[in-house]
């Protein structure tokens, strides 16, 4: 699976770079500056770190529908989507992703008092549902999410750990290079944006291969 995701990454390198320049880097920069602004502006009792956590989550999951489409059209040998189509895919599903993830995040926050069990479940759902958000019918979307959750159950948490740890690892490795310089907000923000632009497509291609139901069914039938 990892090999295939590298192959897809390699094949669409120029498209991925274009999308990164148009969407991923500005989005990351915007969310990063928004967190800094909130930290300056808010008092401690307003919990700016919770907003920061939400921004980081949103930064990852609202890019999923776009890259999922790219990966799926490659895996199913469909016509390559153009850059404009991918941007439209992002814009179209942004509202839905936001609409579902905000309540899930709130439930996860409130559920922290219950030994983190609701938080883990909500995190798993938040990771999975953007892969099903392209279904036009909301009911079908929910059943697809449910079936993925049932099939993968505990391993989704492992995926969550992979996503988080890969990001932290790469971010900290790159920060090592800048450690000796005089750093400002901008350096951190731009580094973050570049890391996101390079790492997210790979992670999402990998996860798409794991979660997309029809593809897996086809593969089992072929065997």
């Amino acid at each position, binding site marked *: 699976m990892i090999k295939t995701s590298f192959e897809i990454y390699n094949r669409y390198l120029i498209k991925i770079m274009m999308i990164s320049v148009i969407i991923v880097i500005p989005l990351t920069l*915007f969310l990063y500056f928004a967190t800094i602004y909130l930290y300056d502006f808010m008092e401690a009792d*307003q919990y700016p770190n919770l*907003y920061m956590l939400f921004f980081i989550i949103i930064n990852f999951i609202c890019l999923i529908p776009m890259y999922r489409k790219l990966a799926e059209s490659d895996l199913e040998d469909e016509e390559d989507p153009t850059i404009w189509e991918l941007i439209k895919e992002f*814009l*179209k*599903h*942004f*509202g*839905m*992703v*936001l*609409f579902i993830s905000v309540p899930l995040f709130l439930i996860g926050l409130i559920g922290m008092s219950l030994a983190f069990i609701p938080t883990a479940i909500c995190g798993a759902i938040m990771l999975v549902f953007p892969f099903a958000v392209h279904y*036009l019918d*909301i009911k079908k979307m929910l059943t697809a999410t449910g079936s993925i959750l049932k099939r993968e159950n505990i391993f989704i948490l492992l995926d969550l750990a992979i996503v988080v740890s890969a990001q932290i690892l790469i971010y900290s490795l790159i920060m090592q290079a800048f450690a000796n310089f005089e750093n400002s907000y901008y350096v951190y923000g731009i580094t973050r944006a570049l890391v996101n632009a390079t790492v997210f497509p790979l992670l999402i291609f990998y996860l798409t291969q794991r979660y997309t139901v029809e593809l897996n069914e086809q593969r089992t039938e072929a065997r």
Partner: protein
Amino acid sequence: MFHFRGLIQAIGVSLVFIIFYNFIIGVFNLLPVEWVVLSTFFVSYGSVGILAPLWNKQAPYTAAFFAAVVLSVINLMFSMIVLRIPVLFEPNTVNENLLSSTVFSLITAFLFIQINKRMGREHDD
């Protein structure tokens, strides 16, 4: 008939527009504050008035109306929770806000639909 998904899509795209527009304006300091507020109002409810009918062809006006109401409720909630302005203490302001936003988005939707109709007729001929 009424597509809930179309409504959510329109609101999401409109939010992206607002964020993008305000980010540009805020970074480059282009306008004075009053104009920022006014132009944000036009951008947000105007875009919703155009996009909601686009994804809800069978019930365009309802879509525009609901999208405007939901957007203003989101705005109220944001100013209540994040900025801590007690907006709900002033029912008159809430009413003005809702009324102006819905009226503006309905007017935009009306103009958009009329223009679309004209253009559609020209294409048919």
